[in-house]
């Protein structure tokens, strides 16, 4: 019976709900903009990680390395695009 019970997925689901509650707290609690954004960003990325690893089984086949390297490459490029654009068009625009 123990082998059939998806304990990892249940735990993941609970953890996922917990992350949602923490993210929601930003709306209901009175906190500064910086704190709110920090909490939202962290919970969002952890949430995405939980989805990929636990529910989309990213690490469970022999394609593990390909999947993770592509994922990290994508994240890296997205960050480069966002921060590069911010730097160019906002922060450093004369």
């Amino acid at each position: 019976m123990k082998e059939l019970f998806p304990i990892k997925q249940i735990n993941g689901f609970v953890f996922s709900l917990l992350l949602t509650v923490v993210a929601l707290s930003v709306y209901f609690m009175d906190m500064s903009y910086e704190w709110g954004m920090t909490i939202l960003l962290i919970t969002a990325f952890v949430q995405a990680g939980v989805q990929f690893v636990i529910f989309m089984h990213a690490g469970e086949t022999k394609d593990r390395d390909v999947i993770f390297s592509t994922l990290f490459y994508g994240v890296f490029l997205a960050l480069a695009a966002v921060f590069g654009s911010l730097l160019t068009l906002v922060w450093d625009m004369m």
Partner: protein
Amino acid sequence: MEFFERFAIPHPSPMIYASMVAIGLTVIAIIAGLTYFKKWGYLWREWLTTVDHKKIGIMYIISALLMLFRGGADAVMMRLQTSVPDNTFLDAQHYNEVFTTHGVVMIIFMAMAFIIGLMNFIVPLQIGARDVAFPRLNAISFWLYFAGAMLFNISFVIGGSPDAGWTNYYPLANNEFSPSVGVNYYNWALQISGIGTLITGINFIATILKMRAPGMKLMKMPMFTWTALITNLIIVFAFPVLTVAILMGTLDRQFATNFFTTTAGGSDMMWANLFWFWGHPEVYILILPAFGIYSEIIATFSQRNLYGYKSMVGSIVIISTLSFLVWVHHFFTMGQGALTNSIFSITTMAIAVPTGIKIFNWLLTMWKGKIRFTVPMLYSVGFIPLFTIGGVTGVMLAMASADYQYHNTMFLVAHFHNTIIPGVVFAMIAGLTYWWPKMFGFMLNEKIGKWGFWFMTIGFCFAFFPMYITGLDGQARRMYTYSEASGFGPLNMLSFFGAGLMAISFIIIVYNIYYSFRYSPRNVGDDPWNARSLEWATHNPVPEYNFAIAPQVKSSEAFWDYKKNGHQLFKGDIKDIHMPNNSGQPIIMAGLFFIFGFSFVFYIWAGVIISGIGILACLVYRSFEKDDGHHIHVQEIKETEEKFGGAKK
């Protein structure tokens, strides 16, 4: 009648009307010819519905050669217009349309198609596969590209060409400054062919990662396959940015949104930013496979293994990442501060390091090699010094403070042609000549090919080196004329002369195809170049199933080791081979996409809705279609192998 007024050319000229007549006559001639010779059935069964990667590759290459002709004609028109001061051959509007068309056609519909065509033909053979991972999708890729290309190409006779440059910068490209439907054509043609390219990217990554022959580890792949893998990775990460940017531009022009406007919170600079976030990786999408082709050719004709295989792989991986981190160098003068420009200057110059490593690797491959100066090798050897000049002027442009001087001058035009022509165009002709016997079973004539090479190279030097000088003297790019007092006249005339030589070389190359088709001997054997990699281990031309027995690979030069070091490639017996079925659906769906794009360009909503429903119907049909492919049976394979002169051991 009112309905048809929208198709009129806003800025006509006798030349455009002559082109309309010529296009009409050509279409009639093709239809009449196919009917007269009863070739419709053959065309439909063997080519239009094919899912065979080899035939799709050949169709890509034929389309690319047609587009090379179109883009080349535009180039000669531009050089003719600027050959003397105050020329009136083209007016400003036509000049704008011509350079826009030249840029888009050459990059998107010529170079991309040629590169993808060669990848299609060669990559599955080099990894010992029967086809790509998703053959049907591959056909869809090609036909979407073709639909996009045709949509773009009819623009100058129906409704007017795009005229805002191939970079299509806003606010110039918005409705106020570009009122004709030209930019709509640009948007939809690039969108449709872009979907095809993205699908190709996914298809080839899956093919290369999943379908390699037994024993072929990643680090045992031939260099062209390595560059194809990295190129397709860049395609998958870069093209969605173009898709989104073009969608935003379309919404701006056709649905009054404010993404790239100068008012209401829009940012026209955002277009330049997004365009080049795709545009710079795009340059490497073109050049990396070219590097792969040169690696194959230089190793083959030096009769040595490729020097520094691991550093070659390392270099292309580093280049692929750096290619995403340099895009701001295309607009150093847009108004961002010194900090940003310095960062992007440094990342840009850093690309010179891995590229330099590759140059040295090629030189060291030739070092003490037994070099044979065949046509492909001539192009490869010509590429090294010419491309290095292009690279060095690139580093000059990368210096942000100096770029304020060069920006938007002919110096820049000279630089990027100096990288793209020896880099990409030479590679395509070299690759085509090198793999020609693999595709068609006979060789291209070497003597005529060498004439083509010398005309091309000398013409190139005459056409583009003068632009470095006029550019530094202040001749701006995209100016349709200049005064005599500027003193640009003589050098521009020289440039026109060079363009003429290049046009002659194109004619020589086409003539060579005709001449060799008629007179070349057909008994060239399976390995006419004494080559090294796996694609030469099967017959010439390649049978439908590529390899009768899947090869067993032990090194990156599997075929060389099979010939010289006694590795056994083909073990076991011939078994039934499972192959995909042909399908007419891809071409029908691409036709619907063409109507969809065309209707959108002219705001014909009925056409949009009907073709949109048609496209969805195709998708639904495909989802429920049961297509298990077919088997080629052992007996049939044995007969085919006998016809080709016996099974390979």
